[in-house]
């Protein structure tokens, strides 16, 4: 298989993985909790897009304008009503809590939409482009470009805006922020809301490529864990880079050995990365800063 084609397809898949991991990375970076409800939010985002497409005929990419704010509000509510109450306890408690939230989201989707697999078929769903001899599906290209836009937008937001800097500060050292007069609770809520909005946006975009049901996002979320641990828990570009690494690793596994082992690679990478970097990158950095 020509190298360029492998690279291009890995890039496109990396775009999928990255967009579904930004939300997880932001929430972990700031709140130091693993948001298991990320998959649930992606699924809800996908269904919202399906409703908008099915009844009002809005294209998935445009539907993001409606899906993202709704998910932001949903995320803010989850943080205020639930996550904040257990923030004092061990991080595993918030993980179990968000796992419960994910199950509730899944049951809501089953109740409203039933169990069948659904899909969104915009006009360009079959269209392909010939980019320098490599045939590229338009839908994946759209998702790839969207993930670039999200990457740049998020970086600018975190670097330039006041709120963005507050969020990054919170990620570094929550106590110091509180002492410096930052309303850590409000920033926490906004960060969680933003993370959930990113997950909802990813869900909306992924409808272009995947069909989905209430159980959607489960395997994808496991890959996002690998990505946020591998790529960097506070750096958004790190997430994009790790997504590419994982996509390439999977691509090579399929090409060189058996396609059935594709997911095995991502799970083995997950365990190895965690064990080799105990406590993940953040703990490594934190331990160095502690002395």
């Amino acid at each position: 298989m020509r190298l360029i084609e492998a690279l291009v397809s890995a890039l496109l898949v990396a775009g999928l993985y990255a967009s579904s991991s930004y939300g997880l990375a932001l929430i972990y970076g700031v709140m130091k909790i693993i948001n298991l409800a990320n998959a649930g939010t992606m699924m809800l985002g996908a269904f919202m897009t399906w409703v908008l497409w099915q009844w009002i005929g809005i294209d998935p990419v445009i539907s993001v304008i409606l899906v993202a704010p709704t998910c932001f509000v949903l995320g803010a509510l989850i943080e205020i009503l639930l996550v904040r109450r257990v923030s004092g306890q061990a991080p595993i408690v918030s993980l179990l809590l968000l796992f419960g939230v994910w199950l509730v989201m899944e049951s809501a989707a089953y109740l409203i939409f039933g169990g069948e697999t659904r899909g969104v078929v915009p006009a360009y769903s079959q269209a392909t482009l010939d980019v320098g001899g490599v045939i590229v599906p338009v839908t994946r290209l759209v998702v790839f470009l969207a993930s670039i836009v999200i990457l740049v937008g998020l970086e600018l937001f975190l670097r330039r805006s006041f709120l963005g800097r507050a969020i990054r500060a919170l990620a570094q050292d929550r106590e110091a922020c509180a002492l410096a007069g930052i309303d850590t609770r409000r920033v926490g809520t906004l960060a969680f809301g933003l993370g959930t909005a990113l997950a909802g946006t990813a869900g909306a975009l992924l409808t272009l490529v995947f069909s989905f049901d209430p159980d959607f996002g489960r395997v994808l979320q496991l890959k996002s864990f690998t990505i946020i641990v591998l790529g960097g828990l506070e750096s958004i570009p790190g997430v994009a880079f790790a997504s590419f690494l994982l996509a390439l690793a999977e691509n090579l596994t399929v090409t060189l050995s058996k396609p059935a082992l594709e997911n095995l690679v991502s799970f083995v990478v997950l365990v190895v990365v965690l064990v080799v970097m105990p406590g993940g990158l953040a703990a490594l950095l934190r331990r160095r800063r502690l002395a």
Partner: protein
Amino acid sequence: MSARLAQLARSSWIHLAAVVIIGLVVAAVPIIDARSFNLQRVAFFVLWYAILAGAWNIIGGYAGQISFGHSAFLGMGAYTTGILWYTFHFDPLLTLPVAALIAALYSILVGAPTLRLRGPYFAIATIGVGEATRLIAVNVDDILGIKLTHGVTGLPLPSYDAETVYFATVVVFVIAMAVTIWIRAGRFGLGLFAINMDRDAAETAGVPTARLQVIALAVSAFLCGAAGSLYAARQQYLDPSTMFSFNISIAIVLMPVVGGIGTIWGPVFGAILYSAVQDQITSLVRNPFVPTLIYGVLLVVIVMFEPLGIGGLLSRLGVVGRKLVMPRGGDADV
């Protein structure tokens, strides 16, 4: 020696007695009415889930290391018995100790490196281990080129007397509960609770945290392996997507957490609730939203308001003595 401490020793005997009574009552069912197939089916699955939940509780409840990959050990046990039975025609229940041992050894292989991780990181690592084990079981025949697990086609097993498996399950249930009670009352349990409370402080108080966690996981995996062996003997058909499924791993976490994490009877409450919901309630409504909603809401409520789980809720209503479901960190008496 103050009366308080005497009571401490005596109280674990009460729980042990309760376990033996339950075992005898459940074992009497087929003796009283050999054709009560439904009662035996329900009782088997309640006991079977209780073994898994109780085993998980040792590492998840006592030591506080939440594992989302326990189906790996269940599957290891089931397939060890399946392969020994199918290929070498051993009696499945005789292979049970071997199956449990191999599951325990596997847990040491994957546990030693991952147990160093903390809280959420350990949880994610176990998800990775669980899924990786499932995919290995699916593809091992192709990788090694030998007929071991028969991959996705599943391992068909000869028939076996259901009643023998039933009694074996009662025995394994009593042993599993006895082990969890004995650990909790003893020095080993005290060390695990210390790890659960604060691993670094425990380490400086002389607790060999790494070694204790590996042993706790091995005991937990041993019991899960035994449960896997029982399942193989009863269902007489194994396939990797069922035996190593993420859904079972989730159930094994849900039962003790919702039932009452770290307590003796929490996993049993959780097992009763889970099999009641799975068996009776899901067939009332032809939509999976009901079981998922029940587990989701219960999990959120329990984690937020009553860490002692249903046991805690019941004790608030006075149904069950508060002493019976003591706090997470162990207690003055058991």
